[in-house]
């Protein structure tokens, strides 16, 4: 069986930046495949290559076995796209937006009308269908654009950070919507995000992308499992030196220890059982516990494990980089 999407050694360079750096993966038919990465990781660039909006510098990519560079017009008939920026026409009503978009795909009139009715119901915009999109909220506009991406019954739907800028409630609505559509139609969904919870809840498989490279790729559960340790004890310690560190790492239940600024992250199998032993040890050696928190492994930890930083840090770095010398070239659709 052909893959829904197959990517082999894709590289995309802009002047000095390598936005996508030798990426390979494949998406199975009917799955929700996610790309998780901070700002500037190369998510949008990758989607643009797969949706024939940009040509790769090198490498191959195909949708349903059709090469995106050689047969772009054939690929375009098979894909639906919800881009990162909001792109519906503000001066048109929701109905008009969908109707005209359907015409771009030569969807026959009767079928178009049925599709619009069905999709407007699905995204819960039926009673606002005749209102100008200019009067919509961000979440409503995003739902409309998801409907628009489905008007021609595509084989695969691409969504680039579809919940960015939405409140938790609206985000959940969109997750449920996507899951429902997938269940009903068997649609393949390719989504990018920089929200951990979104990737975790929604995706069957996730690729973690940083600086244009895939650093890990698996199901959320497997990703969490492979980094080992099930609980994390985060502590800030006083009177704690390299010797103490050696001892800590040597303890049988400690899987690994990572240092971050002032605090330590101690990966253990079971926090409830290990804590008393740890406390005892600290007391014996005169170590003072200044701060302590326990949490279960999340994708955030997976991200830290593979990239050495939190996704928020990665974003701050990016922002600092932007503020630094030389403004970046205006990037269409970089913001919402």
């Amino acid at each position, binding site marked *: 069986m052909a893959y829904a999407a197959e990517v082999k050694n894709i590289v995309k360079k802009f002047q000095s930046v390598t936005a996508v750096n030798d990426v390979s993966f494949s998406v199975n038919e009917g799955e929700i495949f996610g790309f998780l990465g901070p700002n500037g990781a190369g998510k949008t660039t990758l989607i643009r290559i797969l949706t024939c909006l*940009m*040509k790769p510098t090198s490498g191959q990519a195909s949708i349903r076995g059709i090469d995106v560079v050689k047969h772009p017009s054939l690929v375009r008939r098979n894909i639906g*796209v919800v881009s990162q*920026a909001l792109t519906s*026409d503000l001066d048109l009503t929701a109905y008009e937006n969908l109707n005209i*978009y359907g*015409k771009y795909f030569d969807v026959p009139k009767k079928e178009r009308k049925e599709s619009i009715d069905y999709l407007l119901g699905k995204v819960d915009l039926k009673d606002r269908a005749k209102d100008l999109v200019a009067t919509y909220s961000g979440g409503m506009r995003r739902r409309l654009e998801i409907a628009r991406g489905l008007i021609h019954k595509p084989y695969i739907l691409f969504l680039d950070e579809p919940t960015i800028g939405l409140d938790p409630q609206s985000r959940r609505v969109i997750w449920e919507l996507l899951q429902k559509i997938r269940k009903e139609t068997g649609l393949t969904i390719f989504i990018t995000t920089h929200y951990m919870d979104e990737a975790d809840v929604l995706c069957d498989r996730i690729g973690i992308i940083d600086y244009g490279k895939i650093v890990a790729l698996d199901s959320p559960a497997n990703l969490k499992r492979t980094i080992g340790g099930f609980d994390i004890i985060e502590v800030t310690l006083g009177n704690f030196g390299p010797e103490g560190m050696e001892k800590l790492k040597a303890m049988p239940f400690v899987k690994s220890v990572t240092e971050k600024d002032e605090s330590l992250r101690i990966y253990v199998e079971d926090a409830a059982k290990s804590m008393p032993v740890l406390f005892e040890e600290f007391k014996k050696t005169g170590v003072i516990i200044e701060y302590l928190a326990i949490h279960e492994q999340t994708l955030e930890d997976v991200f830290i494990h593979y990239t050495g930083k939190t996704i928020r840090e990665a974003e701050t770095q990016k922002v600092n980089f932007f503020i630094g010398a030389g403004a970046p070239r205006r990037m269409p659709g970089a913001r919402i």
Partner: protein
Amino acid sequence: MRALAVSERDLKRFMRNPFVIIASIFMPLMYLVIMGNSFQGELKHLPVLLVNQDSGPYSRRVVELLQALEDGPRTLEITRENDQKKAVDMVRDGFYKGVIIIPPDFSKNVVKNVEPQVGLLLDNTDSISAGSISGVVSRAMAYLKADYLAVRPDRATPQLRSIELYKKIDYDASLVPGIIVMAIFMGTTFTGAFSLVMDKFLGIHESYLSTPLTRFDLVAGTIMSGVLITTIMSIIVMIGGLMITGIKLAGGIGTLVLLLVTMVLTALGLLSMIFTVLGRADHPRIVGVLVGFLNVIFYFPSGAVYPIESLPNWLRAFAKVNPEAYAVHAFKELILKGSGFTAIRGDLMFFVAFIAFMLCLATLTFKRTM
């Protein structure tokens, strides 16, 4: 057909934001009113100083002639001044457009017949007024000559008589073909390629570049809606222009049809030309600069305000490829003279060739990727 969907989207958006269309109808009409009244025929009320240093009889005759100019066509507004130096200073400081000086020996020289001269000092920074003053004063002097030299018919001053071939056309009426072309030009700058530039600028183009729309669909679709909007605009401007100037269309239904054809072809020609120029632009500021430039280089050497025949050679050569020149010619023939098809056949043929060439170029240079 997909291109029609592109047009439909474009038209709907314009219908929801009619301001720019209304402004673009209003502006050429304002231009007609302002231009038509600013340059109405000869200049009037030009302030000049008169320094009369001669007390003889002939200088009085000169003053009488100048006064006749002041009272009759009101070309001049004369103020007397005795101090020649002060008069010259006042012209230099811009209070007057010129000084007419009658020297002390003027009457004597007339009697002796040794080339009597009147001094004329003009503010050359305002060349139009200067030319006009110099013209009327020389004419007055010619009358003076005629008074005294009437006995010598071989020296009689030649008289100028202009012959009106068509019914008398006022200056502001002759501007009407020009403002129709101006309306078409304006229409073609905010429709057509500009719609796509705005989409690019707003990042909206991403939504349709991932659809099966071809380059041709996009180019043809936006040009079609542009032609429709622009033609409607130019019809309204023409009706407004005819109402303001009071001209009645000379021809019948045939002329109306030809007018419509000329409007559509002009709109198509300009739209496809601008598409070629702007196909790759991604910022409205680029459009602003280019459009302002194109407007000047096409409008002024088009015959809309100044006859092409009087332009220097190189500009006349440019007018041969200037689409607006053909449009102005055709509209002049149809509106001012009521001519038929034969008079504008050349113009229409030019447009057909021009459109075919520009449409190909526009489609080829248009970039469909992001």
